[in-house]
């Protein structure tokens, strides 16, 4: 466990999470959530929990991104303005 790597990864996770909920382009938000899951997987591996990191990489970055892209392709790409 290396503190500086942890801090860098957590900083990027927070940055990506804030960007994903503020974007109006839903496809970009989905791709950002994929990057979020990948960084979370890196954090799990860094915390010596390889099994959880592997699950996060397979489900979060792989399957969920494909599901959400399929959902976006069936509905609409841009969020409506309020």
């Amino acid at each position, binding site marked *: 466990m290396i503190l500086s790597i942890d801090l860098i990864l957590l900083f990027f996770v927070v940055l990506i999470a804030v960007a994903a909920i503020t974007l109006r382009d839903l496809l970009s938000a989905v791709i950002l959530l994929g990057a979020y899951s990948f960084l979370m997987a890196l954090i799990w591996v860094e915390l010596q929990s*390889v*099994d959880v*990191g*592997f*699950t996060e990489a*397979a*489900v979060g970055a*792989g*399957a969920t991104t*494909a*599901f959400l892209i*399929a*959902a976006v*392709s*069936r509905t609409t790409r841009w969020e409506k303005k309020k």
Partner: protein
Amino acid sequence: MKEEQGERDVIIETVARVMIPFIQLFALYVIIHGAGGPGGGFQGGVVFASGFILYIIAFNLAGGRKRFPESANTILSSVGLYIYAGIGLLAILFSFGAAQYLNYGFIPFTSHFEENRALGMDFVEMGIGITVMAIIASIFFDLAEKDEKQKEGEDG
């Protein structure tokens, strides 16, 4: 998810065709080595289904449906569950009334207790992997496919 047959990308199709066998071989490796290392039935099943999803994204939905039809989907998703529950019930039967559910050592695959336990664990992981693979592919098909009604009404 290219709907039209006309637009084809040589690079994407070639990379997908080369990658898919390795992805699925890696998934089988993850399922088999789940007992001793990181991984297991769930992760291996998800990785195996990712191969199907990559095929559908690179080629088209209809071809993916032809290679993995709905009937196979239903059968596989229940076969995995039956393997999982059946191994547990076999353990109950062979433990002679002690009701050792999912204590695989009692099933006489071989003559050694520990070997039986490892083999039973592998079979249960295979059952989990089959079910998870079928269900993940099924969710993706349901999300990406359009019904007949929606095809007429909306576009895209």
